[in-house]
């Protein structure tokens, strides 16, 4: 019976997919003068809540702090982050318009995917949580929570949340910082942090983060609880 139900669900999902992609016969003749309409050029790849595609993972944009999204747009445009499709697409847009688009995605309140079950043993995850919540003073590693918020859901206006993201995406970003593929505005503290962590630590931390359920309030914290432990270019906007 359960199998039947699962099959029915799968069938319904499959049937719905092509329908969603079909032109909407009832679409209004006039193109709506909204940011949502304009943002369709973005959600083609990113989807509503992020999307995995054959050429890579397109992260979720909905609900991330506006300043963070805006800074990433500038980073792509100005070459601090490197993805040709993205940089080319936004190259002819003004700062003001990019800010508007960032604000649009920041204002979206969409559900998050369920957490991914970690595969590591409990002691390793506990050590990862220790690093995430308290850092490692001896290695001058600040706690993730110092900037990304006590609940790890990010901090307004420029620090993104670390929950509700896939392990692959988190590993991908930390790896890109280590290899110099991804940069933030100088001083680029995340590059320093990613390079100071070992591969094993990164693996454990992303396992922990991707395994956390979203807290009841998934919104970014309104402000840093205390002055940032490092001077980071990405904190300005």
């Amino acid at each position, binding site marked *: 019976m359960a199998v039947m139900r699962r099959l029915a669900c799968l069938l319904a999902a499959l049937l719905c997919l092509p329908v969603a992609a079909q*032109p909407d016969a009832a679409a209004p003749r*006039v193109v709506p003068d909204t940011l949502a309409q*304009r943002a369709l*050029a973005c959600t*083609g790849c990113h989807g509503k809540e992020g999307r995995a595609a054959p050429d890579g993972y397109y992260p979720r944009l909905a609900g991330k702090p506006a300043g963070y999204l805006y800074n990433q747009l500038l980073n792509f445009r100005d070459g601090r982050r490197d993805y040709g499709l993205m940089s080319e697409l936004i190259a002819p847009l003004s700062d003001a318009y990019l800010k508007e688009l960032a604000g649009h995605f920041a204002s979206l309140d969409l559900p998050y995917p369920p957490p991914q079950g970690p595969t590591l043993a409990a002691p390793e995850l506990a050590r990862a949580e220790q690093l995430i919540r308290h850092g490692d003073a001896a290695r001058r590693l600040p706690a993730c929570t110092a900037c990304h918020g006590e609940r790890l859901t990010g901090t307004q206006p420029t620090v993104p949340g670390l929950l509700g993201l896939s392990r692959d995406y988190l590993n991908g970003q930390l790896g890109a910082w280590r290899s110099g593929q991804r940069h933030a505005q100088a001083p680029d503290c995340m590059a320093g942090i990613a390079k100071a962590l070992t591969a094993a630590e990164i693996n454990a931390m992303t396992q922990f983060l991707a395994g956390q359920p979203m807290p009841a309030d998934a919104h970014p914290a309104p402000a840093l609880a205390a002055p940032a432990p490092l001077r980071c270019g990405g904190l300005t906007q």
Partner: protein
Amino acid sequence: MKRLLTVLVALAGLLVGVALALLAWQRGLSDHTPASTAPVSLERGAYLAAVGNCAGCHTARGGARLAGGRPIPTPFGTAFSSNLTPDASGLAGWSADDFWRALHLGIGRDGRLLVPAHPITNTTLVTREDADALHAWLQVQPAVSAPRRAHELRWPMDSELGTQLAVAAWRALHFRPGVYQPEPARDAAWNRGAYLSQGLAHCSACHAGRNTLGGDNGPADFRGGLLLGLGWVAPSLLDPAEAGVQRWSDTTLQRWLRDGHADGYIAQGPMAEVVLGSTAALDDADLAAVSHYLRTLPEQAAARPAPVRPDARRREHGAGLYREHCAACHGAKGEGRRDDSGELAYPALAGSRLVTQASPANLIRLIERGGFAPATPGHPRPYGMPPFAGLLDADELAALASHLRQSFGHHAGEVDTVEVLRLRAAAARH
């Protein structure tokens, strides 16, 4: 055998000798046009720098304005733009005469010939007065230290001497220094438009039809061609079926040059960059002059390559893809969709030149990589098209493009998978 070798060596020696003689000749070019006596206007210099879009090439992505370092893809390798700011690594200490020599003769202060990635056939047309205004304005810009990055060109241009010899030979074939000479049969506005379009605005740098040596038929060569390394075609400005504007209204063309968007025509790719960096800055009189000039260019049909074999099944496949991915925005009949001001928010594909141009390069590129119209003060919040690169493979791109080029009353050549792959390779080559 030995004799053949002797002949070959002699020939090679002769070639080097000729090239050295050409180099000596080209480096020895001189011009004694005196500096202008009129007071130099910084405001004028700033305006001219914008019209010429100097910052477009002389600014690296995300780098300091005018400090150079931007890679310029050419068929011969990658050239890197130079630093125009008044730093020791740039134009510090350059006199107005030095700057004039660079702009007018294409010779740097150190006596080196500039590589033709810098559009010398265009900048030589600029008057001394305008060159002096540009020089004065550049000399008061913030100085940025950014040493010249060596060009990465292919043999025989992979050394400083090799580059200089090759540039000398190229110049002997393609470069004749001389300020723009007005055509007496035309009125002042036309001549102003020609002076700007052929000169500082250097339209032919992209829109010329180049031969295999990268040479063209001069600064009024607008036959169009593929921009290697960029993957875009700069379509012919002489052919109304390509990008010729002879049959456009003056109002439409002026709006398009200023806003990058008019009556469903959208400036795309490198041209969006040109609108943002150059034509949007034209003042009313110059905008009218450029429009007047471009609208009176002679009409000349662009060469159309032999079409690939039609394939009904491929077109049918394309029609299905169109219904699935495109019709929601571009309309079932390719009619486009308008916003509430009545402007086409999503351009009509029926009758679109971009769809039916001789080369499908720009069409394929837009489907693959999407795009926005430039955000200009007159059109600040354009709608956009998402990239389909991750959704459609080369077969599907060929099918969709073939469908578009044969539907809505179009009769343009179909596109096969090989052509899609060939265009991709051209985009990657530099």
